[in-house]
């Protein structure tokens, strides 16, 4: 018997809400939005955690400039607190080394981190999903019941193709869908909003493409001063309701 599954519930007992940022497609801004959302909530006085579940390509630590030092351990391991956000990433352990993990191994890594991480009391834990509809997405559904999924999309037919599949799958499984957000919006058009409507889930608004985002990555202070962040802050407000 795997003892870890029995420990998860207690480890998360102080977490009031879990929001997973997904969308199945890669490169649509899941990680930057997840990080900015965490930061916005923390700025607003919420107790926030950020859990990077993209184990083979972790980036949350880069976006928040968290570095890759080991977490401290005592009765478990403590997330790093970066700009007010309690963060956990496999990169804190693997550093720069690539860690190729097959799906079953990613599941094991997730269970291990869930069993030992001391999130403490959080208003919200933001979960940054890897792309695809694979092990980690299924594991979140299975091991973190009640998690609300927020899906990102961009106005590209290849992205919409993937988001449509994700919406259909999550809808069938019956997990709560917080809503759909359009990211990297450039001009008119309402492809992403239309997708949300036809799937019968809330459209939560859009985040503009911001050419200034790149130079703000790695620095929470600069990140807060981008137009991108203004939009995410509004999104955070809407998600509070």
């Amino acid at each position, binding site marked *: 018997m*795997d003892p870890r599954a*029995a420990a998860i519930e207690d480890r998360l007992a102080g977490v009031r809400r879990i929001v997973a940022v997904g969308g199945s497609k890669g490169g649509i801004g899941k990680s930057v939005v997840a990080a900015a959302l965490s930061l916005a909530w923390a700025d607003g006085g919420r107790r926030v955690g950020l859990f990077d579940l993209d184990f083979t390509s972790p980036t949350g630590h880069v976006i928040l400039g968290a570095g890759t030092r080991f977490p401290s351990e005592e*009765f*478990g391991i403590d997330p790093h607190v970066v700009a007010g956000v309690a963060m956990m990433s496999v990169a804190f352990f693997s550093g720069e080394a690539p*860690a*190729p*993990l097959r799906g079953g191994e990613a599941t094991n890594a997730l269970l291990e981190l869930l069993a030992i991480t*001391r999130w403490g009391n959080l208003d919200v834990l933001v979960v940054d999903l890897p792309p695809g509809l694979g092990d980690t997405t299924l594991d979140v559904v299975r091991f973190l019941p009640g998690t609300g999924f927020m899906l990102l999309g961009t106005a590209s037919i290849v992205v919409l193709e993937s988001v449509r599949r994700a919406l259909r799958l999550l809808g069938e499984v019956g997990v709560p869908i917080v809503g759909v957000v359009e990211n990297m919006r450039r001009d008119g058009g309402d492809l992403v909003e239309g997708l949300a409507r036809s799937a019968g889930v809330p459209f939560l608004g859009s985040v503009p493409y911001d050419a200034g985002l790149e130079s703000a990555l790695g620095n929470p202070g600069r990140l807060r001063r981008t137009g991108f962040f203004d939009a995410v802050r509004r999104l955070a407000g809407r998600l509070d309701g």
Partner: protein
Amino acid sequence: MHEFALADAVVKAAVRAAREAGIDRVEAVVVRVGELQQIATDLFEFSLTQVLPPSDPLLEGARFVVEREAVVFRCRVCGREFGTGDLGEAPGADEAEAVHFIPELAHAFVRCPGCGSPDFDILAGRGVTLERIEGRGGDLPGSP
């Protein structure tokens, strides 16, 4: 000292398994500890035996038996089975620490001695498993 958290998980799992098996008083909890994770056995056993059991009356007076299990890797590319003894130089402190927390990170640091691949399975000796519990009211064989 995250050994405490691992021991805590074992204790919770033992209580849950006892309830499911209709056991009223647990007499023994058998735990398998894989060597890959390099857990500090003294701390782990101290947590298991001294700190945690009072948390549930089901475990009062229970014995904890810790069995160690050697690591067996099997390469998916060349088929070679190997253990930690086959790995040439010992891992650095940071590498050992990473694997201590997340045994899967062996894939970041261990390479097949036959062909150099990181694409191996960990067949045995990974981490902490609740092997079985014994007690009054029924026996529960370990299940996956």
